């Protein structure tokens, strides 16, 4: 059974300088509150892993927490580019950022390989793709049955996997509904997992084939209402699209970015998230 502990405690005991962390969420269920706690604790030289790094990774990178990023699509969905990440890649600000870039299919396969305790993943892919030439972790293996060459790449085994979900029950079992992304794979591939939830309930009321992560696969459950904002939680609150649009302007300027982070992340704690979703219906 996982420990039911405050987010601050969960992050402090699992996320250490230099470790690898996957905070996943495919538009949906992005663990914003957890990312902000990592920033407040001043972690450095993290390797961040995510298929779709967006606002929280822009924030972690811009605050100098990250030395390497493993990813497949880095953008602000529906808005544009990630300006803090660009500044790090193009100008090394505030610290240089090493990147290891894959395709979505490869990242998804690599999480599955991690969850399956395999050393690498393979797929029929990366054919004619330029990433093959710039990412030395993309190699080929030959099918022993047909002789076909297939793409191979290392499994993802994050030190810490962090996701958000609508609810956990009192045994720490977590229900994931709506767009599933790679939430399950992230928890099962990681050495330890932290799940922030909207609420802890008596009964998950899950149907027999629902996506449920048993409590014994999770290290810590932290109740943080609104903890995905401005991402969304299926059936609980919608995506706060305007926040993503505003982010594009905030992140465009280093000073404005730092001032925003000071006021909205460093000077507050995770209790602010409940308020942030209160007006959303």
């Amino acid at each position, binding site marked *: 059974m996982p420990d039911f502990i405050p987010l601050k405690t969960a992050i402090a005991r699992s996320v250490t300088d230099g470790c690898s962390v996957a905070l996943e969420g*495919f*538009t*949906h269920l992005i663990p914003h509150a957890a990312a902000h706690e990592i920033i407040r604790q001043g972690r450095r030289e993290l390797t961040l892993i995510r*298929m*779709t790094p967006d606002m929280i990774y822009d924030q972690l990178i811009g605050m100098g927490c990250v030395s390497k990023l493993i*990813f*497949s*699509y*880095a*953008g602000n*969905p*529906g808005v544009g*580019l*990630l300006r803090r*990440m*660009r500044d790090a*890649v*193009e100008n090394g600000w505030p610290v240089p950022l090493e990147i290891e*870039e894959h*395709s*979505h*299919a490869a990242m*998804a*396969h690599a*999480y*599955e390989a991690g969850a399956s305790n395999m050393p690498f993943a393979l*797929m*029929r*892919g*990366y*054919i*004619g*793709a*330029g*990433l093959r030439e*710039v990412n030395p972790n993309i190699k080929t293996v030959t099918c022993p049955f047909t002789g*076909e*060459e297939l793409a191979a790449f290392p499994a993802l085994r994050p030190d810490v996997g962090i996701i958000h979900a609508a609810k956990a029950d009192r045994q720490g079992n977590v229900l994931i509904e*709506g*767009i*599933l*992304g*790679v939430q*399950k*794979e992230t928890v099962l591939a990681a050495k330890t997992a932290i799940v922030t939830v909207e609420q802890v309930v008596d009964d998950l009321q899950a149907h027999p084939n629902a*996506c449920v992560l048993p409590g014994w696969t999770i290290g810590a459950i932290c109740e943080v209402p609104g903890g995905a904002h401005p991402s*969304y939680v*299926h059936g609980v609150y*919608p*995506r*706060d*699209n*305007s*926040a*993503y649009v505003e982010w594009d302007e905030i992140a465009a300027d280093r000073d404005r970015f730092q001032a925003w982070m000071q006021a909205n992340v460093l000077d507050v704690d995770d209790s602010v998230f409940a308020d942030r979703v209160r*007006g*959303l*219906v």
Partner: protein
Amino acid sequence: MDYSANEMMTVAAARALTSDDVCFVGIGAPSAACNLARLTHAPGVTLIYESGTIGTEPNVLPLSIGDGELCETALTTVSVPEMFRYWLQGGRITIGFLGGAQMDRFGNLNTTIVGDYHSPKVRLPGGGGAPEIAVHAQQIYITMKQSPRGFVPRIDFFTSFGFGEGGEDRARRGIATKGPTRLMTDMAVWAPEPETKELQVVSLHPGVTREAMAASVGWEILYAEDVSETPPPTAEELEILRDLHARTKAAHAGRG
């Protein structure tokens, strides 16, 4: 009825789809085109977004590939690994819709960087699902606006593979799918020349001249033997497309 070049592009792209298609949809222009097709002549078209939503029928266009609307209106939603393994690599997608920041005459696309990969002038979002969509969807439709910055002789990075160097390059690399069979822009409809696979203009949108075409493309354009005029958008197509955009704008305005 007056219409914009953008609307012409979306309508031309929508017309290419049929009710039998199973379509892997990207955000932006492809999403508008696919949903316009579904709301007009191709009600049976199956739309799939890479967030795992299969057979989705959104009432408004999604802002992001993982919007809740896509899941709520889908037949079913699968995990992202399943999406790429069973549905895309499994060969079940008939049409993959792609766009890009740069494209060359063989439909190779770049959405990764401008400049050198290791010290880029502009770091773009990257490929996402595109590298595998480009080789596993049975056909690729490309939709993007023409401009000298976008339609370049040599792309800076091969994010997704079109016809490579042309001719039989796909087959030589063991790719069995057809590749970019159609390109719908704001000025014309293009299709590959059967032998060389260079994209050539098959129809010009109403009012578009060859001079204007030349100024918007960074190579010497190949024209098919008989270039036709793209039929303009019908009143019905325009009305449905504008309603869709109006609903989308209202839904995405302000918080939520």
